[in-house]
């Protein structure tokens, strides 16, 4: 019997990035197939293709043996494929039944048949085990129950394939168990489920089969008994486990890569965080230190709380507790201004919205943070500004026809350089970087790495969040691994391997 869904050799390219290459997968009737992989492995692209949000560049999709073209979400729906988003797609100002039949209401000449709407919905509510009235307003339901409504909606559209993207990320323990029950129930009724998750424990519990993606390609498959944590991690990581030597070896140090050599034994910590609690994960206390001239990477999966940590350090969000010391002095950072005064600098994750001001000139962006220092009694000194901007852009090799060019016209890599350059004139003590080389070309990446090392050499402490394993392996003196809002562990250079990071990131502990 043909599989319910089969994807053959799907490939998809985005400018500069190969999201999927020759990826195949089969989904049988009544099975739960888990799709796992690191950040950027291609999972969400694959799901978007199956759900009709994107179309593949090449390859084909077969539904019960017949080749189909899924060119829109509507088309996917007609074929019986439904995507349950991580961020739910409900109209929370409408009631449950209206949501279930949204766009497919029983109607005559445009007038909705309310009676049928409610009576028809009860069947699907039963299937997902939702015991509330169909007239309940969705906004009053808990997230877990809202998710059930989404599933009911998919079932009412006669979905044969449910694609669930990180479904438990916002659910409580109880709701998660409820979800498992529903999934198992649906499975027994012949519905096939594609389950994407970082939580390998869940995958182990639910999945009949596991497909692993790595760097946009198939990396392997596991069946039934083969499914265990170690096996999954091994396939996810796969690369040769080689520790990349630091290229920061200075001529008068040995090349063992030991970070302590560069520092004097009694140096004060550049940054010390004790019992720091972020608003996103207030129950976890974060403790860590940064030495001057040290480059510390923060690894972890999406949602682990890394960006939240940087935001609290920089004063964008208020800490719920704990204290931070910069160069030994206790500081209260309640806003970015406080942070800057304390000697912190941040290059945020969202370059275009937060890192630079797109509709302002390169020169203006570069001098924005240090304007205060270059001015006298508030009056700007254009010559000094141009001189400093010129120097910074040259140092970072920013490619721009002039300092007056609006930053929006620069390439991503050059925009990021501008986002970084503006802090140089300020000589921060601690530089916070959030995904410093995301989405930029290889050449610009190298330049940013070079700059990081140069700054570290000058005594700046660098804390960088990165989802790119290679980057973490290459640049970190030490690595903090976060998992679900807490620091799961710290790895020294010697201990730093992809597997070790993955283990900590997926909550499996150290070996």
């Amino acid at each position, binding site marked *: 019997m043909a599989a319910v869904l089969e994807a053959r050799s799907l490939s998809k390219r985005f400018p500069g990035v190969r999201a999927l290459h020759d990826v195949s997968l089969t989904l049988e009737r009544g099975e739960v197939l888990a799709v796992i992989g690191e950040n950027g492995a291609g999972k969400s692209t694959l799901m978007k293709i199956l759900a009709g949000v994107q179309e593949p560049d090449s390859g084909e999709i077969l539904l019960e043996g017949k080749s189909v073209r899924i060119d829109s979400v509507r088309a996917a729906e007609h074929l019986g494929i439904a995507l349950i988003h991580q961020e739910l797609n409900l109209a929370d100002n409408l009631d449950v039944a209206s949501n279930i039949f949204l766009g497919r209401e029983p109607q005559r000449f445009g007038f909705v048949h309310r009676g049928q709407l409610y009576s028809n919905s009860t069947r699907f509510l039963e299937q997902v085990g939702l015991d509330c009235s169909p007239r309940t307003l969705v906004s009053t339901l808990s997230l877990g129950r809202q998710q059930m409504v989404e599933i009911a909606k998919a079932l009412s559209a006669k979905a044969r394939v449910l694609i669930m993207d990180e479904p438990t990320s916002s659910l409580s323990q109880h709701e998660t168990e409820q979800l498992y029950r529903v999934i198992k129930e649906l499975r027994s009724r012949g519905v096939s489920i594609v389950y994407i998750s970082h939580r390998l424990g869940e995958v182990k519990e639910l999945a009949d089969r596991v497909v692993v993606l790595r760097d946009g390609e198939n990396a392997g498959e596991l069946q039934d008994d083969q499914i265990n944590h170690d096996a999954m991690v091994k396939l996810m990581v796969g690369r040769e486990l080689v520790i990349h030597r630091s290229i920061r070896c200075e001529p008068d140090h040995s090349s063992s890569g030991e970070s302590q050599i560069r520092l004097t034994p009694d140096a004060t910590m550049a940054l010390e965080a004790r019992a720091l609690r972020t608003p996103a994960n207030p129950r976890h206390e974060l403790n860590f230190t940064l030495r001057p001239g040290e480059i510390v990477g923060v690894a972890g999966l999406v949602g682990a709380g890394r960006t939240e940590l940087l935001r609290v350090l*920089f004063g*964008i969000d208020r800490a719920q507790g704990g204290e931070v010391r910069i160069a030994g002095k206790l500081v209260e950072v309640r*806003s*970015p*201004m406080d*942070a*800057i005064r304390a000697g912190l600098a*941040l290059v*945020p994750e969202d370059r275009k*919205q*937060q*890192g*630079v*001001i*797109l*509709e*302002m000139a390169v020169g*203006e962006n570069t001098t*924005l*943070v240090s*304007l*205060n220092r270059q*001015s006298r009694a*508030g*009056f*700007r000194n254009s010559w000094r500004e141009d001189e400093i901007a010129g120097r910074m852009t040259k140092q970072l090799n920013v*490619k*721009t*026809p*002039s300092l007056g*060019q*609006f930053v929006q*016209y*620069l*390439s991503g890599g050059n925009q990021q350089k501008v986002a970084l350059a*503006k802090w140089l004139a300020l000589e921060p003590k601690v530089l916070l970087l959030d995904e410093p080389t995301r989405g930029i070309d290889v050449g610009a990446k190298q330049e940013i790495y070079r700059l990081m090392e140069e700054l570290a050499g000058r005594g700046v402490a660098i804390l960088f969040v990165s989802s790119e394993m290679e980057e973490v392996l290459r640049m970190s003196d030490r690595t903090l691994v976060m998992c679900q809002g807490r620091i799961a562990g710290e790895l020294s250079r010697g201990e730093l391997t992809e597997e070790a990071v993955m283990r900590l990131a997926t909550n499996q502990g150290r070996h």
Partner: protein
Amino acid sequence: MKKLLGIFGLLIVVFTATALINDKFVSAYNLENLISWTSLFGIISIGVAFVIITGGIDLSIGSVIGLVGSLMAWLLTHKGWSVPATLLAVVLVSLFIGLSHGLLITKVRLQPFVVTLCGLLLYRGITRYITDDQSQGFGSSFDGLRQLAIGKLQITGTFALPFSVFILLAVAVLAHVFLERTIWGRYLLALGRNETAARFSGIDTDRMKILAYVICSLVAGVGGILFSLNLNSIQPSGLGEFYELYAIAAAVLGGCSLRGGEGTIIGVIIGTAVMRVLYNAINILGIPTHLEFAIIGAVILAGVVADELVKRLAAKRAAARQLEAK
């Protein structure tokens, strides 16, 4: 720069065309009038430009003018206050209003449109209440003070330059220097373009926004003083009515984007001039006054459309330059 030349060109065109059609347009009397009104409106337009640059708006300007103007006349004539005390009082009132706007918008996070719209209604109501809706005036006892607004400097035998031009110039120079040559001006422009990125760069965006609203209301207050001195017969219910629209229109015509982050003082002045010249031309040329609003509206629309097209052209050029730079 292109934008400024464009609108300046428009000004020249309308001016010369009207002058050619009817030479009463360039009579000394008319020109003095034109310059006087342009100066007064120019002043309040500069004020509102600061707020627009931060991406906000101030709809209460007209009512502030009404309040300040009526209050001043009332305090001087009905309450017998001295001139310095009165001036201080109205300046403080303007300051207080601007501060309130700023605080409500930054700390309570209300929308500028809503806050200033309420202001528009509130201040007008207060004005009418205090003055008992009675017409106010300075009579003949304050001619010295009135010179500020109606005094003139004799240039030629027939033509005299209104003093208000000098007040406009003073305000304009201060505003221009503040915006273009100080760090705070740069901060305002940055926060207007992208408030988040500006905050992340360490700019105290709340304080800067409050400053913008204070400047706007303060300048409106100055406008109120001058307008009332000029008119001498002040209706509390009517003084300043719709002035906020003229001010905003002038600012937009002069290059301020309502999205924020853009604008020059020179542009605002030229924008004001264009509007005043248009208004004057319509009157002089005998075009029916019911078309007045329609024409001005059409010109502003045309101005903004042209601005958008010019921007697109500039964008294409900039992108092309970028490719060459690689």
